[in-house]
């Protein structure tokens, strides 16, 4: 195994048992190494870093207000460039789906448009989990949250597509259940100059309502059903990642109902919504196929 042995998160954090985000963070930091400055808005990740005086991570972290992740990262990059340290130190913004697709989108869009040399990683647990499971624009169709008691009526926002439209050199999706794939992607992204964007699906046991032991299994189902394809877009070239390659064939994909029925947040989902999930997955993969053929 060529994964770095050193851990950058100390055990004994405040995260829930079975949190996929902590696993994602653990492997992202392993890939990025010690010469990293992180900036984190209000999210579950703030909770991980702990209370005043003590910190669970061994790398430098700057906490910022909710809407300013992209702007704060731009500031760090500018100061590092001024000091001539920008080549050695990688600036990484790590935010939740609310801090990325709702509140932080203008700062992120601004930073991406300026071509700021940083990595933006969004761990997507599909709601505001830190404050008690409220709907975000990244919550999928039909999911129960505290603010959508009858199930969400709008589908999930496709953030990787929005960031791709900025013409940035690297966009990737990842999944906490495939840590080796995630590690490789962060390693690759570290050496690219310019804005790099990650969208990482992170299964959340209390918010999605499943047993903590099933975290990896549920996350894996998202990819195996074709709901969450893993890909990279490197300078406009679309590359399907290894774990997702075989799901180009519709027969190899598992039925989406298996993924939905494993989580209690989808317990009241209608037949119509399940059908629109099937259509969404079919359209999504048709487009992936078309992109792979036409490049």
């Amino acid at each position, binding site marked *: 195994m060529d994964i770095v042995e050193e851990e950058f998160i100390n055990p004994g954090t405040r*995260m829930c*048992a*079975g949190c996929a985000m902590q696993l994602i963070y653990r492997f992202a930091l392993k890939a990025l190494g010690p010469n990293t400055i992180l900036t984190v808005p209000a999210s579950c990740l703030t909770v991980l870093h*702990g209370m005043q005086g003590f910190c*669970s991570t061994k790398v430098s972290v700057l906490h910022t207000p909710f809407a300013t992740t992209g702007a704060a990262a731009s500031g760090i990059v500018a100061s590092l460039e001024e000091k001539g340290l920008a080549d050695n130190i990688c600036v990484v913004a790590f935010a939740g789906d609310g801090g990325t697709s709702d509140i932080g989108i203008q700062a992120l869009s601004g930073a991406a448009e300026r071509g700021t040399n940083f990595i933006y990683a969004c761990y997507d647990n599909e709601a505001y989990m830190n404050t008690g499971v409220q709907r975000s624009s990244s919550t999928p169709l039909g999911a129960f949250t505290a603010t959508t008691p009858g199930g969400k009526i709008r589908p999930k926002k496709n953030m990787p597509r929005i960031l791709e439209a900025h013409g940035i050199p690297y966009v990737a999706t990842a999944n906490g259940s495939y840590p*080796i794939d995630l590690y490789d992607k962060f390693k690759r992204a570290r050496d690219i100059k310019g804005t790099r964007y990650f969208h990482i699906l992170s299964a959340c046991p209390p918010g999605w309502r499943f047993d903590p*032991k099933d975290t990896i299994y549920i996350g894996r189902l998202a990819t195996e059903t074709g709901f969450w394809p893993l890909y990279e877009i490197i300078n406009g070239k679309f590359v399907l990642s290894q774990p997702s390659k075989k799901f180009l064939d519709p027969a190899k994909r598992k039925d989406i109902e298996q993924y939905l029925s494993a989580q209690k947040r989808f317990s009241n989902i209608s037949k119509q919504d399940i059908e629109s999930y099937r259509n969404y997955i079919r359209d999504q993969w048709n487009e992936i196929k078309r992109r792979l053929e036409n490049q």
Partner: protein
Amino acid sequence: MTDSKKDYQKILASVQKPVIGEAGKTGTWSILKPIINLEKCIPVKSGKPSCYNCWLYCPEAVITRTIPPQIDLDYCKGCGICVEECPAKAISMEVVKTE
């Protein structure tokens, strides 16, 4: 006056120190703990550094990549991911009382 100002600045510009167990001994969160059956564990059986799925998928990073793998029960939250992901079914959840 200067002393109190210093204290005030100390609080505002506090240095965060990395520590193990920032939230205390998180091992007390659950009484069920993963115990490895070394007769079934793949690295122990083969004597080679292989498998380590438990180390790979542990969110808390309490499992070591050694032969045999060691689990730090002081900080293990007992989520049970290692039990699910072990290909040899060598890990089981058992009641362990921690102080």
